[in-house]
């Protein structure tokens, strides 16, 4: 279990993390979502004892990271933003080094083999890390965090730089690990944390702006009123037809002729209005084949906008605090 209370980190005049509090229960996967420069890495570095906080405290399974650092660190496996790999070592040498460094007691060979199998790096075990691809380096980084089987895993953007297949593999792995570990992972991508996490904490400019279970948050943030639609037929006429839907605010032709005769439309209905059925019915009634319909994913900016304007948590003060000004740090 991880408990963070009023964590604050200042770099000179700049406050990177501002009174952040949250909790992760045992066997919970907590997603830490925020744009670039939000303070995710800083928070994780404090949790793992790499940095010291200016104020506030972080407690891992009842052990304060500042008061008993060695005891707390023993319970944490950490994958930093950039995997901490010694490039001159082979994968096997490196993992053995980590094993000794962490003073593990488990049987070394079977333990390391198990980890290698789990993150699928068994076939590169004898290779020098320098020569591995980015995705494999990332996996060795994950493997390193798993050495010693710590009950708490802190993973900073674990899927960054991986190909889509590997992303799915790592997500599956994290879900599996979440069954008997407490996991905190950070990400820029809502759909990613939504896919693997039980709980989502959204952080922006050093402050928490939302903290809720995945389902609730996603439900509140769902964008059924914003659709991307592809239909076959005269684009101008289809646009006219769809514009006549009562709750529709805006219809835009994204691209004509995405396929021969098919155009893509962007639909924006009034907040909270599910227009999917109506779109499909109207197109069918006029014999315009509907070829694709999906809700457009909210970008992080849209999420923040929604949280601030929608006041979905009733904590106007907290939200306002986190959102005043522009999102200057975003990429």
């Amino acid at each position, binding site marked *: 279990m991880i408990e963070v209370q009023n964590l604050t980190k200042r*770099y000179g005049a700049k406050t990177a993390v501002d009174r952040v509090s949250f909790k992760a229960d045992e066997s919970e996967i907590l997603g830490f979502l925020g744009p670039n420069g939000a303070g995710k890495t800083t928070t994780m*570095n404090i949790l*793992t*004892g*790499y*940095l*010291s906080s200016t104020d506030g405290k972080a407690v891992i399974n009842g052990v304060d990271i500042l008061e008993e650092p*060695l*005891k707390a*660190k*023993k319970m*944490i496996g*950490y994958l*930093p933003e*950039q995997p*901490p*790999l*010694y*490039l*001159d*070592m082979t994968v096997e*040498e490196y993992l053995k*080094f*980590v094993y*000794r*460094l*962490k*003073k593990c007691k488990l049987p070394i060979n079977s333990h390391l083999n198990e980890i290698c199998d789990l993150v699928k790096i068994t076939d590169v075990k004898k290779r020098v890390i320098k020569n591995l691809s980015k995705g494999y380096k990332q996996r060795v980084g994950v493997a*390193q965090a798993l050495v010693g089987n710590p009950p708490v895993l802190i993973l900073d953007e674990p899927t960054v730089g991986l190909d889509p297949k590997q992303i799915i593999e790592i997500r599956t792995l994290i879900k599996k690990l979440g069954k008997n570990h407490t996991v905190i992972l950070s990400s820029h991508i809502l759909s990613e944390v939504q896919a693997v996490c039980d709980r989502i904490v959204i952080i922006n400019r050093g402050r928490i702006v939302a903290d809720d279970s995945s389902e609730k948050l996603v439900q509140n943030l769902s964008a059924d009123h914003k659709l991307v639609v592809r239909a076959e037929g005269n684009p101008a006429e289809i646009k006219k037809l769809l514009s006549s839907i009562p709750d529709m605010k805006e219809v835009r032709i994204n691209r004509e002729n995405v396929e021969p005769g098919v155009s893509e439309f962007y639909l924006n209905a009034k907040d909270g209005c599910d227009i999917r059925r109506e779109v499909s019915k109207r197109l069918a009634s006029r014999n315009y084949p509907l070829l694709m319909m999906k809700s457009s994913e909210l970008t992080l900016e849209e999420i923040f906008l929604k949280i601030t304007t929608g006041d979905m948590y009733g904590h106007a003060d907290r939200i306002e605090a986190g959102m005043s000004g522009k999102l200057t740090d975003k990429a």
Partner: protein
Amino acid sequence: MFAIFRREFKAYFTSPLGYVFLAIFYAFSGLFFWLFSLDMGSTDMSNVFLMMFMVLMVFVPLLTMRLLADDKKQKTDQLTLTAPVSLFSIVFGKFLSAYVIFAIGVAIMPIYGFVMSIFADVSWLPIWGNTVGLLLLGGIFVADGLFVSSLTENQMIAAIGSFFINLVILLLNTLVNQIPSGFFRTVFESISVYSRYNEITNGIFSLSSVIFFLSVIGIFLFLTVRVLEKKRWA
């Protein structure tokens, strides 16, 4: 600590750095041995040891520059500093790895003594004394190199910085000779590494000198730990 020592020690031999250092060490000590002892028909090796001060002053920084600077640059410090090990054991493990390489180099010195003993009578006491002196001096060079390496991410700067400290250590002695005798002279004399080393190479081997060398090593290691600690609060 042992894990760190083992890794760093091995790393000296996966890169050519360890070999290069030992080659330089053996080449220079061999050259001086030949010039000052064999060629001049003298079994007094103190000149050889004095010259080694200069050589090591330049080349030990090459051995230590990587130790902490590169960890920071490659972000591997995120592994060591978040592992359940104390800062001191990280620092000491790194110190030891470079120091053992250095000691392997020094091991050649008594071997020269044996070579000489084939041809002539040698007085062994000064040779052993000098060897111990070299080991103590090297400890200071390695420790200050490690300290500078903790201050920067740049290996080049680490090496130059360490060389600079070694130079100051040497110049401190020249400074002493400029000071008229009195309180300050006594103070500076007692902290002059070079004059103490010189003492040892002349066969004067005092406990206070040994304690002095060990303390200087200890101070640099302590400062290194402090630097790492302070960085967390940055």
